[in-house]
């Protein structure tokens, strides 16, 4: 049975003067689903998240959370949203506990109700023993985890995570991923913006690729890979590349999409590695081209982004 739609972004548009930050972005997220909003810096991810969180009014379009539009300052539907801002939105000069008490109070939580929520959030992010310490004494990774905890206190259904791992060490990043996987297992709907493809690949059920304020792809990881003309790359280090001549001749081999020779390194793009590799190796043997090393590369989102936009994700 299909899960209900928890979040719908419909034709969102936002411009600042002549600069169009978001141009007709639409997508939807089912309950318990994690989607990755992937794109380079300046692609419009944060603006999109701001409109979903009700921080920014779209020029046109609509955001629905569990079927209700996100409009107005005091709209109760905002209680269903938990925002983890890209910045460390914490008071350094206050203890972690005081920070969380304040953020719980923003949702009219106090007393035992707030205490239980704070305990649970601190437990999840592993900071229970540091509750009384000032945030200023925390490491960057601990602050990131507390930033996450602050968004969980009112038990939101939809969690908007705007680049929540910026500037943290790999260990803290893994800890945050573990937290997010726990939340996902609890049935939370997660919208995760990032420009790190590895994070999106690890966490997300579906990827929405955004570039120049527009959605350029919206599919599962496997679905995105299927859009690629080639999904695997076979790398062959020849003993003498000069003997090969034109690498383009390899396109005659079944399953080969393209081939390229740089020095002694032959790169062959295949639709399917297991189907195409034997043919390539046979073609090389038949031509007398010996090689000293063989390897392959699996497809990734970088390849997808490059294919879809013609630009590298990291360099954009």
């Amino acid at each position: 049975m299909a899960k209900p739609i928890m979040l719908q972004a419909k034709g969102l548009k936002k411009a600042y003067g002549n600069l169009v930050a978001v141009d007709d972005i639409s997508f939807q997220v089912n309950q318990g689903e994690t989607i990755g909003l992937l794109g380079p810096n300046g692609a419009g991810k944060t603006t999109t998240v701001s409109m979903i969180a009700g921080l920014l009014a779209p020029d046109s379009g609509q955001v629905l959370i569990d079927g209700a539009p996100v409009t107005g300052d005091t709209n109760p539907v905002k209680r269903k949203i938990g925002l983890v801002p890209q910045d460390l939105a914490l008071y350094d000069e206050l203890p972690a506990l005081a920070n969380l008490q304040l953020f719980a109070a923003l949702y009219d939580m106090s007393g035992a109700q707030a205490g239980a929520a704070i305990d649970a959030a601190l437990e999840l992010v592993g900071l229970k023993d540091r509750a009384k310490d000032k945030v200023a004494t925390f490491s960057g990774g601990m602050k990131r985890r507390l930033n996450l905890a602050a968004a969980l206190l009112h038990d939101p259904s939809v969690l908007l995570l705007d680049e929540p791992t910026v500037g943290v060490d790999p260990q803290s990043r893994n800890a945050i991923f573990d937290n997010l996987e726990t939340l996902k297992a609890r049935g939370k709907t997660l919208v995760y913006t990032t420009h790190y493809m590895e994070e999106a690949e690890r966490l997300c059920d579906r990827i929405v690729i955004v570039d120049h304020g527009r959605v350029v792809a919206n599919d599962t990881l496997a679905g995105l890979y299927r859009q690629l003309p080639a999904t695997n790359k076979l790398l062959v280090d020849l003993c003498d590349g000069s003997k090969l001549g034109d690498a383009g001749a390899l396109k005659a081999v079944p399953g080969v999409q393209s081939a390229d020779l740089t020095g002694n390194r032959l790169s062959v793009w295949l639709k399917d590695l297991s189907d195409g590799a034997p043919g390539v190796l046979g073609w090389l043997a038949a031509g007398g081209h010996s090689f000293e090393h063989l390897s392959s590369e699996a497809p990734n989102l970088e390849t997808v982004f490059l294919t879809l936009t013609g630009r590298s994700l990291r360099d954009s």
Partner: protein
Amino acid sequence: MTAFLALILKDIRIFFQDRRAVIMSFVAPIMIGSFFGYVFGGSSRSSDPGRVTVLVVDQEAGAVSKEIVAKLRAAKTLAVQQSTLAEAEQLVRSGKAPVAVVIPPDFGKLATQAMFSGRERPKVRVYLDPSHQIESSMIEGMLTGFVMEAVSKEAFSGELGRATVDNSLKQLESTPGIPSEENAQLKGLLQALSKYNQGPRSSQQIARGGGGLSVPFELSEEKLTARQGAEYNPYAHSFGGMAIQFILFMGIDVGIGMLLDRQRGLWKRFASAPLSKWTLLGSRAVSATLIAMLILAVVFTFARVVFGVKIEGSLIGFIAICAGFGLMTSAYGLLIAALGKTPQAARGLSILATLLMVMLSGAWIPSFLFPGWLQRATKLVPARWAMDGLDGMTWRGLGWHEAVLPVASLIAFAMLFGIIAVWRFRWDEK
């Protein structure tokens, strides 16, 4: 309501966490207020009043000049030092003494003769440091009175006076061409004066300055305040002024703090919660008002305990002015947050605006020393109303009804700033 109170408590807690803010808001106004209170007359309450130093160069050293010097010495507001001409010139020129008075040789004789004959009058030179114009004017006025008394005394009863009268009688007898009737009248006048000069003087007359002319009135100084017996306490003004200054600085911190909240992403967290604009801005306004009132309470409590500053007027009026000023300050902070783009950019401009406002409020220099047009113009400065109101309720001892206009003005400014702040506040968060 939970969110509103939590936001207020958070602001107050953060304010007290910041040691710099606490020192700036509580300690600095007390220290600087104490200093200004002392400098602007606080010492006048002690047994050793501050006096103006006057150098006297007595080139005559005669009866008249000694009498003048004695009268100058007797004046409570002056500290007289004898000096030489060269030394006096050097000390005034270098700013080490504000005024020097030079009594020329034969001053008594020449002045007495000038009184009856209209001969050339001797010149008393006054050297003055241009930066002490007020003191020199005061000394010139006092000197005129003392000289008049000393010279007339000598003219009517002293040796020089007797000699001058006798000499005038002789001249009258030897001068031809004076009509006989006029000659007889003048002779009668001089003979009567000569006879008076030779007569006995009562000790009372001598004590009063015996026989000469005296200034025909006495000045009776009475300090008028609204409450009988209430004395002016310069610390009341200086503590009010410094409290106003540092509370306005606290207002800057309110605005900068909100800009920092935005920069740190905290505003996103607030705005993503189901909170009204009133909760978000109103809580900040209330917390700033409470902190401002607390600062005023602490500063004036210190002034009361240490310097005896009393609220001579209406306590209710005083509290209302504190609340009105606190509200105005909080709205001023919101205005800074609304108009400032970044904390860094807003800080410099808001400090300049605040210093101008403090200067024009009369917090540093009492506004009654301003030119008339400036006194009228500064009614447009909100802090001026707070300053006048605090002065009125403390040392002037005015009633609560005199607090109505300052409080109404402060509330009007608070509303104006608040409306502009809400209008210009950047609600959208990218």
